[in-house]
């Protein structure tokens, strides 16, 4: 059971890492996958750098959680994901963004999975 849970945690970690790498290798494709155009000039610089580091950090922390079983590595990416879901709802409510149901669902599910895994797998620190 615990092994299966560790695998379930690693899978989204790898997925997020791949998206981070995609931002570095093919940013136009990465942008399109997230429903945004690739900007020009300084905008593109910020877009590529910030999005790449966001997803790479998220992915690495998640993978690290499954390897190290330290609770903080579970909780940090969980907080980031749940925060992203909350801010998506906020963007919809306040800033006329679309209600992105599928990304919100993914973020909430993986965030909750990480918190659950933390309670089951993490060593006492």
């Amino acid at each position, binding site marked *: 059971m615990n092994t299966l849970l560790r695998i379930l945690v690693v899978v989204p970690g790898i997925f997020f890492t791949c998206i981070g790498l995609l931002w570095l290798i093919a940013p136009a494709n990465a942008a399109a996958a997230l*429903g945004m155009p690739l900007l020009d000039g300084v905008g593109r610089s910020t877009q590529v750098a910030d999005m790449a580091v966001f997803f790479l950090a998220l992915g690495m922390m998640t993978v690290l959680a499954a390897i190290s079983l330290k609770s903080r590595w579970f*909780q940090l990416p969980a*907080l980031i994901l749940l*925060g992203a879901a*909350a801010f998506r*709802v*906020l963007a*919809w*409510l*306040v800033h*006329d*963004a*679309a*209600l992105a*149901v599928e990304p919100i669902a993914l973020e909430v599910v993986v965030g909750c999975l990480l918190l659950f895994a933390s309670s089951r797998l993490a060593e006492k620190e």
Partner: protein
Amino acid sequence: MRYVRSLRLLLLAVTGLWHSLLLAQAGPPNIVLILADDLGFSDIAPYGSEIQTPALNALAENGVSFTNYHTAASCAPTRGMMLTGVDSHRNGVPNIPETIPPELAQYENYRGTLSHGVVTVASLLQDAGYHTYMAGKWHLGQTPDLLPSRRGFERTVTMADTGADNWEQKPYIPIYERANWYADGERTTLPEDFYSSRFLVDKMIEFIDSKHADRKPFFAYLPFQAVHIPVQAPQEFTDKYMGVYDAGWTALREQRQSRARELGLVPATADMVTMSTTNDWDAYTEEERRYHAKRMAVYAGMVDAMDHHVGRLVEYLKSIGQYDNTIFIFTSDNGSEASGGDDVRSPLMRLSLAMNGYTNDYDTLGLKGSFNAIGPSFASAAAGPLAYYKFYAGEGGMRVPLIIAGEGLPVKGEWTSAFAYVMDIAPTILELSGVKPPGRYFGGHPVEPMTGRSLLPLAVGKVDRVYAETESVGYELAGNAALFQGDYKLVRNYLPVGDNRWHLYNIATDPGETEDLSVSMPERFVLMQTLYADYAADNGVLPLPADYDATFQGVANGIRERFGLHILVALLTLLVLVPLYFAYRVSSRR
């Protein structure tokens, strides 16, 4: 044959001129604009329906009826264009606000409320000395500055939402907290004995009666709730149609097609398609068929009741001696409504209705507390013999009845197959009343000029068309789009019922849109797509977001409208509490 037709036109022109002179001598006529809601092309007796509509029959016999009149395929865009004569993408109402995605709603003309950059026909008539009254559904904005009392109507009682219950002051879907009714710009409460059609006509009679003595002409705008969902009717009206629909929707659609051919509403050779959403009547059990037949009986009862109350208004006008100086315009805001599905007895459907305080039991169907809709199969019959229905750009969504009638008109019981469009109503009313359309400015503010055409030359028999063969009229609503030119129509019906691809039809010979001419007439197909692109660019038509789904958007917008503040407070509270919790945990470990 051509000489006979020319002679007839000449005679009509002479009588038309004579009647125009009579109209001018009698002073400006009263104008009664009656708008049914979601009424299909063949839903009234003059258009081949089995539903008894004697008042509308009498109007049709006293004027001209249009077989090729097109409106927008959804409520608010029709109302906006009808009252202003301005394209929906220029008047602020390209779609109903409930389903406009937020990405588009940030643009000024995509808010779904009537822009202050347009002037209503009511404002123009009021300026010209008319009394202007409205009783019925508005749906063009409900902030104080957008209500009809601030858009040219002197006296109003109005419901500001997409729809509402017909028996009580209650929202019909949970996206509304309450049914938003207003009287003269202030929130109001409906009477205990409320039934929508009766109440609206009572109020209109009350308005007219209150100022009748001063002899000024009036403009009465009467947009009924009938026959929008929830489809509800007094029992005695429903009872007239029990048993009438026992043969089912396919039989009814064929019956309506046959009648439309007999009446000459469509060519005798015109075919029709079976919609993919039409279910197999024979596959239902006897009990299920009995239930569905009653759904349609209630619908017919609701149309009949509306007609009964139109008749009361006509009788009232006769009683005060104003009938002879009144021009009536009757039409519908779009084709028949298909929502509700045909699986309405499922536990999930009944649970969702119960959560909104409704049942759909057979015995009480159509009465107070009951929610009824005819569903896609009967909706297709109601639009018969046309294809598609409300929301879609197929003829069944856009082609609806239009009758212009009155003692002052020279044409009696005539039909015209001339193309006419919803934007033509406002210019027609202005010409009838002798009021000039607005220029570039109204009340010192810049306004969009009217682009519709007056249909009066058709109504007095002076011409046989108001749009030349080469002129084109474009249309777009939530991805459903069309371009009309001469006898041809370029059309794109959006998902889920349409395929989101362009098709070309000759709607004069093939109003059922059965034979796609896009391959056999490639030059016209390309030309009309180019003309549509020009229309879209000229009028600021915006592309829909990818994967747009009107139903989902309606739910999302409804949640945001009703619960947005609650969600926002909950989120902000969480955003404060979570860091505090983690800070507490870290400090307690030290």
